[in-house]
């Protein structure tokens, strides 16, 4: 087995007193496209924020390329982020810059390339996501799917060694969704990037990824290749893949009091 | 493209600001004498300076020739020592006299210089010996009342 690109070793994380991840361990191999799936609030996004170094675990280690993120200085952490692309859930384009300036942003901030070359690179990156010719538009003039693609072009501007996708399929129509999924797969194959994608869109993800982790209640409860997941008869996986409301995962929030008590129907209240 | 227009506007903005400051300095505040190279100091001692303040004008025949630079109390004589900065183009003779005057009845106080007849002029840092103090209104009224009372006392005494 080769050395993993990303490794979680017994990671625990909590926001204040609310535990999000509990003693989580997994590995992602170099060059793989991996999906992390789970219901809302299962700590998927926190997982990405741990990899990008935006938050630090209370226990355990997050290693990227063999280095512990928690031990990095501010400058080293920024160095790590320069080699990383992050696609935000809603794109997070800079609304005061044009599309072209948005894509050029990482290039201008981190390189001393001449403006002509930057313009050419921007054209190439936009061409890669099929949006060449939109350089002069403002982000407010784009549809949701186009904005997501511009954000993708911006994320890959510095040819990152690691791509992180936060819910890349949320809120897109089926065609945009297909285009984004196709782009993610294509970029991964073309650039040889290691990629981690957080999503709850099971069917689309299974089509493109190499490996899947399922997260629930802060733990990894299942993993496997897409073929293994589809063939699995674990009740948990079946519920998730088929989208049934009841099963091992409870749809309702675990309220401390019963519904009857909340409505004042219990004996003694009336 | 877009940047040059912004640069242009910011340039106009800053130029307007500089023009405003220049206008305020030259037209609103008179940025004329004050600089030490064009003035020379003179010293005058007064028994009482009344309400004279630093930067008050020094006038000769009603024309401003300088300003009061500093006012301090002489620790030996207990008189007020006033330093004047006079414009270099005006020279005063050694027997020039200085008095503290008031513009109008209740206006600001200033120093009036009256040129003397001595052919020798005062050098820089020279002392004006002929000085008369400020007229303090309360003292003036006090004096008036006293002399009025004395006259009132005198008359019946003479009649008796």
């Amino acid at each position: 087995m080769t050395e993993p690109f990303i490794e979680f070793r017994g990671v625990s994380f909590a926001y204040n007193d609310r535990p999000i991840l509990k003693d989580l361990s997994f590995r992602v191999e170099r060059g793989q496209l991996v999906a992390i799936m789970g219901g809302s609030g299962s700590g998927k996004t926190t997982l990405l924020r741990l990899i990008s170094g935006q938050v630090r675990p209370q226990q355990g280690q997050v290693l990227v390329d063999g280095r512990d993120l928690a031990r990095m200085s501010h400058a080293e952490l920024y160095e790590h982020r320069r080699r990383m692309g992050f696609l935000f859930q809603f794109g997070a384009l800079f609304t005061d810059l044009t599309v072209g300036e948005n894509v050029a942003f990482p290039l201008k901030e981190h390189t001393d390339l001449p403006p002509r070359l930057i313009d050419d690179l921007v054209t190439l990156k936009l061409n890669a996501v099929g949006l060449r010719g939109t350089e002069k538009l403002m982000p407010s003039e784009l549809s949701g799917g186009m904005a997501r693609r511009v954000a993708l072009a911006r994320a890959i501007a510095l040819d990152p060694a690691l791509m992180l996708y936060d819910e890349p399929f949320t809120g897109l129509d089926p065609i945009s969704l297909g285009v984004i999924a196709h782009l993610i797969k294509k970029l991964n194959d073309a650039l040889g990037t290691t990629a981690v994608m957080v999503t709850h869109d099971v069917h689309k993800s299974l089509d493109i990824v190499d490996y899947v982790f399922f997260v629930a209640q802060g733990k990894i409860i299942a993993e496997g290749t897409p073929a293994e997941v589809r063939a699995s008869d674990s009740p948990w996986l079946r519920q998730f893949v088929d989208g049934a409301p009841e099963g091992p995962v409870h749809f309702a929030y675990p309220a401390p009091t019963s519904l009857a008590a909340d409505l004042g129907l219990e004996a003694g209240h009336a | 493209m877009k940047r040059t227009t912004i640069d242009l506007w910011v340039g106009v903005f800053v130029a307007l600001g500089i023009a405003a400051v220049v206008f305020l300095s030259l037209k609103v505040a008179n940025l004329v004498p004050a600089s030490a190279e064009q003035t020379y100091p003179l010293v005058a001692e007064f028994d009482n300076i009344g309400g004279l303040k630093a930067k008050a004008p020094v006038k000769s025949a009603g024309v401003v020739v300088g300003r009061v630079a500093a006012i301090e109390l002489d620790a030996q004589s207990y008189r007020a020592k006033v330093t004047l900065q006079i414009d270099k183009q005006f020279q005063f003779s050694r027997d020039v006299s200085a008095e503290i005057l008031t513009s109008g009845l209740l206006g600001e106080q200033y120093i009036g210089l009256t040129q003397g007849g001595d052919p020798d002029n005062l050098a820089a840092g020279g002392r004006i010996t002929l000085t008369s103090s400020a007229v303090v209104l309360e003292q003036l009224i006090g004096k008036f009342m006293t002399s009025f009372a004395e006259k009132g006392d005198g008359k019946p005494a003479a009649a008796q």
Partner: protein
Amino acid sequence: MLDTLLAPLRHLGHLSVNAVWRLGFASRFLLAILRFSGQSLARFQLTIREVYFAGVLSLIIIVVSGLFVGMVLGLQGYNTLSRFGSADALGALVALSLLRELGPVLAALLFASRAGSAMTAEIGLMKATEQLEAMNVMAVNPIARVVAPRFWAGVISMPVLAAIFNVMGIFGGYLVGVVMIGLDDGTFWSQMQNAVDLHSDVVNGLIKSLVFGVAVTLIAVFEGYDATPTAAGVSGATTRTVVTSALVILALDFVLTAFMF
């Protein structure tokens, strides 16, 4: 029972602790801005862009307000001064009130409501739409890239706007006093020039506006950066910028006046 009595007290205590907390955070924020100012001032283009939004776009409101304030001063000043037979001193009155107090204070209040609120809303929205976070993830420090240029733009713009406000105000006073009422042109200016001192009036007024510029812009960028990243949070932060700026300007004005004049 006791609880209902104590609740307001507890609320008050909570508010005070929160205020002190924010004051500490704001101070640390100012230090961070100063620390990262070097790299952002090295790319001065960023600051120039913000001077355009904060300064140039505030010009119209500053020019028009300055003109009207000067005209009102001219009218009111003339009415009062002419009762004492000293209408000649109108120029001095207009210039001194503007240079010492009204210019710096009113320009700062207008700047806070025009440019300060816009800065807060912009930074707050950038935070709410994850733009600041995105920058951070792209290894670009948002304080250096977003906050520091806006801060310096405000600090540069404020004295310029105050100086323009003063000139417009004096021009307004001149319009009313000389052109409308018919005071003597020469007396107006010479009385003004006699009364106004370059250092103690003009320079001190500009120092005041510089201090106000630092205060207003710091409040504006801080409120934006500290805003709760929701629509309600950003609108609350924008309101707080205007209210806090107004109070801070007036309080600082008292302190500065006590020191200067």
